[in-house]
C-alpha cells in the first residue's frame, strides 16, 4: 500500500499535464474573479461576487475533479499499469485504496482551494466590501470540501465501473454544463443528498430585500444578506457527505474486487 502510494505520488508529481491543468484552472478562476468584478453593475467587491455568482465557486470544479479522478483511477486500466500492480502481488483492496483515497481527498481539497481563488483575486482588486461577513463566507467555502469529496467519490465509482478516463471526464463536463440548468428546472430543495444541491445551499445566503419610496428615483431596493450558517447545515453537509462518499467508495471497491480485467 505504502509503495503504491509512493508510486502514485511519484507519477503525479512528475506529471507535467497535472501541473498545467491545475495551474490553468487557478489562473482562469483568478481572472474570472476580476472580470466578474469589472462587469458588475454595482460597486464590485468579493462579498458581492459571492452572493451574485455563487455557481462560480463550485461549478467549474466539477470538471477538475472529473479529470483528475478519471486520470488517477481509470488511467491505469488503459496503460495496463494496474495489471502489473496486481501481478506484483498487491491486493486489490490496497490498489483500490491507493488510488481512490488520494484521488477523492486531494481533488476535494484542490477544488475547495480553487473555489477560493476568484474570491481572493476579486478581493485583491476590489476589496471585501460590506455585503457579507468574511467569517461566514470562509466557513461556507471550507465546507465545500465535503460535497466535493462526495462528488469525487462518485466519479471514483464511475471510474472503476467504466474503466474509462474519457467517460468520467465526459460525465464531469455534462455535470458542469447541466448542473445549474438542473437546479433551475428543479429548484432548490435544501436537500443534501446530491452534492450539487449541497454546494448551492452552502453558497446560497439568506436574503431580505426591502424598499423605500424616493421622490426622485421611485422604488429604491436594499438587500441584506445573512452570512451565518446553521448548525444543521454544517452537520448535515459533513455527515451526509462522509456517509455517501463511503457508500460510493465501498460500491466501487465491491465492484473492483472481483471484476474481470481485460
Amino acid at each position: 500500500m505504502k509503495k503504491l502510494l509512493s508510486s502514485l505520488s511519484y507519477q503525479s508529481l512528475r506529471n507535467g499535464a497535472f501541473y498545467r491543468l491545475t495551474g490553468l484552472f487557478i489562473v482562469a478562476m483568478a481572472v474570472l474573479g476580476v472580470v466578474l468584478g469589472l462587469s458588475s453593475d454595482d460597486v464590485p467587491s468579493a462579498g458581492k461576487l459571492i452572493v451574485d455568482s455563487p455557481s462560480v465557486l463550485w461549478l467549474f470544479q466539477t470538471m477538475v475533479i472529473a479529470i483528475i479522478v478519471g486520470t488517477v483511477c481509470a488511467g491505469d486500466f488503459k496503460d495496463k499499469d494496474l495489471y502489473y500492480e496486481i501481478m506484483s502481488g498487491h491486493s486489490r483492496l490496497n490498489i483500490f485504496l491507493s488510488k481512490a483515497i488520494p484521488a477523492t481527498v486531494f481533488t476535494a481539497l484542490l477544488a475547495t482551494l480553487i473555489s477560493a481563488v476568484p474570491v481572493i483575486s476579486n478581493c485583491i482588486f476590489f476589496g471585501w466590501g460590506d455585503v457579507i461577513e468574511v467569517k461566514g463566507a470562509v466557513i461556507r467555502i471550507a465546507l465545500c470540501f465535503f460535497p466535493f469529496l462526495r462528488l469525487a467519490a462518485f466519479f471514483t465509482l464511475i471510474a472503476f465501473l467504466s474503466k474509462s478516463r474519457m467517460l468520467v471526464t465526459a460525465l464531469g463536463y455534462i455535470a458542469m454544463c447541466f448542473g445549474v440548468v438542473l437546479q433551475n428546472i428543479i429548484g432548490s430543495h435544501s436537500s443534501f443528498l446530491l452534492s450539487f444541491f449541497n454546494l448551492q445551499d452552502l453558497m446560497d445566503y439568506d436574503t431580505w430585500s426591502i424598499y423605500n419610496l424616493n421622490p426622485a428615483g421611485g422604488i429604491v431596493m436594499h438587500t441584506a444578506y445573512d452570512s451565518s450558517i446553521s448548525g444543521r447545515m454544517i452537520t448535515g453537509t459533513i455527515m451526509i457527505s462522509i456517509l455517501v462518499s463511503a457508500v460510493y467508495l465501498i460500491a466501487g471497491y465491491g465492484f473492483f474486487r472481483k471484476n474481470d480485467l481485460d
Partner: protein
Amino acid sequence: MDMLMFLILAICIFGFFLPSIRKKYDSSIWRLVYVAPLILAVLISPFIKWNIGYAGMYLAVILMLLQLFTEKQGLNKLISGGAAVSVMVSIICIMVLNMGVGGSYTGDFEEAFAVMKEHYVLTEEKGIDWDSLYAKYHPLFERAEREKDEILDHKSWLQFTQEFHDGHVGYLAADSQSAERAECEIFGNDYGLSLLRLTSGEYVAVNVEGCEKSLNILDYGKDYEYAENYLSDDAESDRLQLLNAGLHNGSVITTWNGKSIEEIEKEVDVYVETFPSKDNEEFYLPMYAAGKGGDSVEIGFIDDSGMEKTVKAKALGAYYPRMISTVNKLDDGVNISNLDFQPVNSETAVLRIYQMAYDSKSYEGSDYTAMTEEVRQKVLEYRDRGYKRLIIDLRKNGGGSPFMVGGVVQLFAPEGEHLISYSAVINEKTATYERGADGKYVKDQKISYMGENLWDQGDIIILVNYETVSAGDMMTYLMAEYPNVTIMGFTGSNSSCQAVTSYSTASGGISFSAVPNIGEDGELIIDTRTDRVRGVPIDHVIPLTEEAIDAIFDRGEDYLLDYAVNY
C-alpha cells in the same frame, strides 16, 4: 421518478434470479446489476425531497451493494429478495399512501412565520403577539400535515392571516385548483341564497337562485368549473326551491335552522379576505353566515303577504361561488378603462380608477408627468363644458403606486404643498426600518405634491368599498382633506396602506405590510390599530335599503353610482 423506482424494483427482482443466470455465463459484468440501483437512486435524488417513505429505496440500494461482497447464491437471493420487498414498501408509501406528495405544511408555516415576525412593520401598532399566534396556529398546521388535510392547511392560513386585520396580509396557495377546492369546502353549502343586513337591521335574501339577475348554478361551467363537482345530484331539480316557496331577493329572513341570524354569524370563523376595520367586517358577515348548515336548512322568512313562513332548503352545492358573486354585485365599479372619464348626465361625470398603475415604465419610478397631463386635459375639458360634479370611482381599487396617486390628486388638491407620506430610515445591515426612542419609525424622505385646484367650481364624490385598498386607500385618505370632497359607499375603504411585500414557500405565498408610510406626526398612516377603527374617513355611509337590494340584485343597476349622482 416513479418509473425509476419501478426500475430499481425490477433490478432487485432480477438480482434474485441473477445467481442462477451467472452460472451459465462466466462474466463479472453481472456485478453491475448490484451497483445499478445506486446509480438510479442518484438520478432520482435531485427530484425528490427527503421523506421517510424513500427509506426503503435507499435500504434496497445498500442491500444490493452488499452482494458485491458475497458469492453465496442463497444469501444473494435472500438479500435481493429483501431489497425488492424494501423497494416495494417505498413504492407503497410514496404512491399509495402519498407520503412523498406535497410539502411540509408545518415547515412552510414555520418558514413564513419567521420571516413575517422579523419584517412585519405593524407589529407594535396592531399589538401582534407572535408567541400566542404561533402557539395557536402551529398545532393546526401540524394536524393538517399529520392528516394530510389540505383543506385544514388552507383554512389555517386564511385564519392566521386574518388575525392581523391587515388587508395586505394574505395567503395565496401555489396550486390554484386546490385552493379553489379548499374554498368550496371551507365556506359551506349553497342553499340558493346569500344574506345581507339592511341598515334598518333586518336580514334579507339576495342573489337568490332562480331570480333573473342572480347567479345560476346551471352556468357554473362558464365561470366556476371547479364548483361544478360540488353540485348535488338533485341540484337542477331543487334549484327553484326558494322561489317556489315565495322567497326571493329582498325577502326578510328571520331564522336559520331555528336560530337567529346573529347566532349563525357567531359560527363564522374564517373569511375569504381580511377586514381591518370592524364595521366593514360586520357589513359582510351575514354573507358568510348563509353557508352554514348541513344537507339542508330550515329558513324562516316573511313572504309577500307579510306572513312568516319556513322553507326547507336543500344544499345545492358549494356556497363559495354564490358568495363571491354576491361580493362582486355589491363591489364592482363602473366598467370602463382605468383613468377613463364618462359623462353620467349634463352636470356629472365619472372618473374610473381601479388600479394605481399607468404603464410599466412609470410603475417602478416616480415620474407620472405624462399621466398627470393626460388626466389634466380631461379634467379641464369637463370643467370647461360646465360639469359641476365629478365622481371618482375607486371601488375595487386594488392599489399600486403612491406616486401615481400623487399625480392624480395634485389636480384636485387646494393650491400649495401637500404631504403624501414620509419613507422610513432603513438599517441596511438588517434590511429593517429604524424605530426611534419613542417607538415610532424614523422619518426619511418626504414625498409630497403641489395642488392645482382644477375642480374648484364643483364638488367631488369618491366612491369606495372595502376592496379599495393600499394606494386606493391612500388616495381616499389624501382627498378626504379637500373641502369639496365627499367620500361615500356602503362601507369605508379597506384601511391598509403600508407598502407590501411577499414571501413564497413550497405550498404558497404570503403577502404582508413591509414598508412603512409615515405621516407628519411620525405615526403610520391609515392602517387600523388594535381598536380596528378605520384610518380613512367615510363622510357618508350609503344606507343599504330594500330599494338598494332591488336595484342591485333584481335590476342589475349601479345603485351606488346613481346614489352619488343624486346626492
